[in-house]
């Protein structure tokens, strides 16, 4: 079997080879942010009666008075030493902000993703089992409906219906009901922390908060996931080895689950990985609508106020996650598919 060492070497190689891309992301974001016509110093010096002196002072403190290239070099040096600068919007180091907010985003995305997978894969399989049947068309139609509504609309409608009218959902104001005390932070994932603390009531409260936003996000990815599943399953079901399995008389459960499904999941795995990182980067609007204290809404606020550091930090973070997810998928794929040579 593949040795752990080979996997580690492969992981290392992949990480190394993604460094140029990360550097590219850094530089591009940096330049892009400077191209934005807004001047953060002006924006943030706009307290009552702030004058040119305040602006200049702020500009100097932010190093904005230096030539662009020098700024970039300083920035790269800072990033190299783990300093992502300070956010003017929150007044905190970006790294701290991101560290605090990333778990919220991850938890939300993860829940949404799990939800989507749980729904989409059985639907996709059902559709593939009877191609061109009513089920197939129905699945396709229903899934497609989900992609048609902008997330901010579906989010607001869900809030309106489930919170305001029906009153079954908790107030859409973040990760935890404000009157429920948060669990001692171990992993920063509410659901996990509550479990560790053994507080089931708290767990329920956190889970309830998650339902609406994650459903909003999930709606958007169910369709592509179901599609891929269906296509991949169809392909596998008509493949030679499934025919062989049939020819030797394996039971349909064995054929469909052990033979077809496992193979069909391989391409789904790849797509799902890409989808996860896209979701993480694209849940800006959902976070906004649900007041979710995640990195997306953080970046959005920063972007609109030309607050460079948080945006740069956010993009870098997303790029890193993108790399990591790809890597994880890669490794998973390598484990799931013996044809991929690990070395």
């Amino acid at each position, binding site marked *: 079997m593949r040795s752990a060492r080979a996997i580690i070497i492969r992981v290392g190689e992949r990480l190394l080879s993604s460094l140029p891309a990360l550097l590219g992301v850094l530089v591009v974001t940096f330049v892009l942010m400077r191209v934005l016509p807004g001047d953060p110093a002006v924006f943030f010096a706009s307290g009552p009666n702030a004058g040119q002196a305040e602006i200049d002072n702020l500009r100097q403190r932010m190093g904005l008075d230096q030539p662009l290239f020098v700024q970039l070099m300083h920035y790269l040096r800072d990033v190299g030493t783990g300093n992502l600068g300070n956010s003017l919007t929150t007044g905190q180091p970006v790294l701290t902000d991101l560290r605090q907010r990333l778990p919220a985003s991850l938890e939300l995305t993860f829940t949404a993703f799990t939800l989507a997978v749980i729904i989409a894969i059985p639907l996709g399989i059902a559709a593939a089992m009877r191609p061109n049947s009513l089920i197939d068309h129905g699945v396709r139609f229903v899934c497609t409906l989900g992609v048609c509504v902008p997330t*901010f609309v579906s989010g607001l409608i869900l809030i309106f219906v489930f919170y305001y009218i029906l009153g079954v959902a908790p107030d859409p104001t973040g990760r935890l009901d404000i009157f429920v005390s948060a669990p001692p932070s171990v992993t920063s994932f509410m659901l996990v922390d509550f479990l560790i603390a053994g507080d089931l009531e708290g767990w329920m409260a956190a889970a309830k908060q998650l339902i609406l936003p994650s459903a909003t996000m999930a709606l958007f990815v169910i369709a592509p996931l179901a599609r891929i599943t269906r296509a991949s399953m169809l392909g596998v079901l008509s493949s030679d080895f499934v025919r062989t399995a049939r020819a030797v008389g394996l039971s349909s459960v064995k054929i469909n689950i052990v033979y077809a499904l496992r193979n069909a999941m391989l391409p789904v795995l790849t797509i799902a990985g890409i989808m996860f990182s896209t979701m993480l980067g694209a849940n800006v609007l959902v976070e906004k609508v649900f007041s979710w204290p995640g990195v997306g809404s953080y970046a*959005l606020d920063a972007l*609109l106020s030309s607050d460079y550091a948080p945006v740069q930090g956010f993009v870098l973070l*997303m790029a890193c996650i993108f790399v990591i997810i790809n890597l994880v998928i890669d490794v998973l794929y390598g484990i799931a598919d013996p044809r991929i040579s690990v070395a």
Partner: protein
Amino acid sequence: MSVITLKHVRWVVASNPLTLVAASGAIIIALIGVLAPWITPQDPLATDVANAMQPPTTAHWFGTDQLGRDIFSRVVAATRIDLAIALSAVSLSFVLGAVIGGVCGYVGGRLDRVVGRVVDVLMAFPLFVLAMAMVAALGNRVENVILATAFINLPFYIRFARAEVNVRRDSGWVEAARAGGENDLSIILFFLLPNILPAMAVQVSLNLGWAILNAAGLSFIGLGVQAPTAEWGIMVAEGARFITSGKWWLVAFPGAALMLSVLFFNLLGDALRDILDPRMRT
């Protein structure tokens, strides 16, 4: 794959009732888009503050908005601009992506590696944030919304075209074209690209809906098309603010228009896939 007989199209349509719905829906939307100026009952821009926020009546089928403008007229008028945004954004990324990807896939080597790296960089970006930043940097005009939408789509098209061209690059008919006296450029433009067109057409159709949604998302953040242009995304984003006050018609009608068009484009993409490639249906 290349010739689509009428009969085949009919078969596809018959085998999947949704296709017919999607096709006719898309045609109707396109027609509305083309005919918009002639079928709006009222000037979509004319305000009438005295009659603001009226629920649907016979005079205003879809009610009026905050400025007393006729929502029906605005929804109709918006069809054109939204189609224009979607079509031009997608065709821009399609054309650029196909050419860049095509050249890279064909030439390979260092160029391919460099472009591949750049595409990697782009893919690693949180794309919606990138679009926001672009519109913020360039100003929120229709052109820039289009540009941003096209840009964040570009890496996917490049990859797609690259991969498609790459698998065909060594095929016999490309060699045959060279033996027949074609040079590299004309092989890319007149042989390879036309061949990957059907596969990309499906992508295009699916992307049309996505482009509309993207524009709507930008509008929600305030970075969409500028006022007073009637555009579904803006109307939905503005209307969404009034859901709580019970002014449902502000969001419902433009929302429905947006949703239906995205739905039709998506279903149409599926249909195209069926028509263009009977074997591979995803």
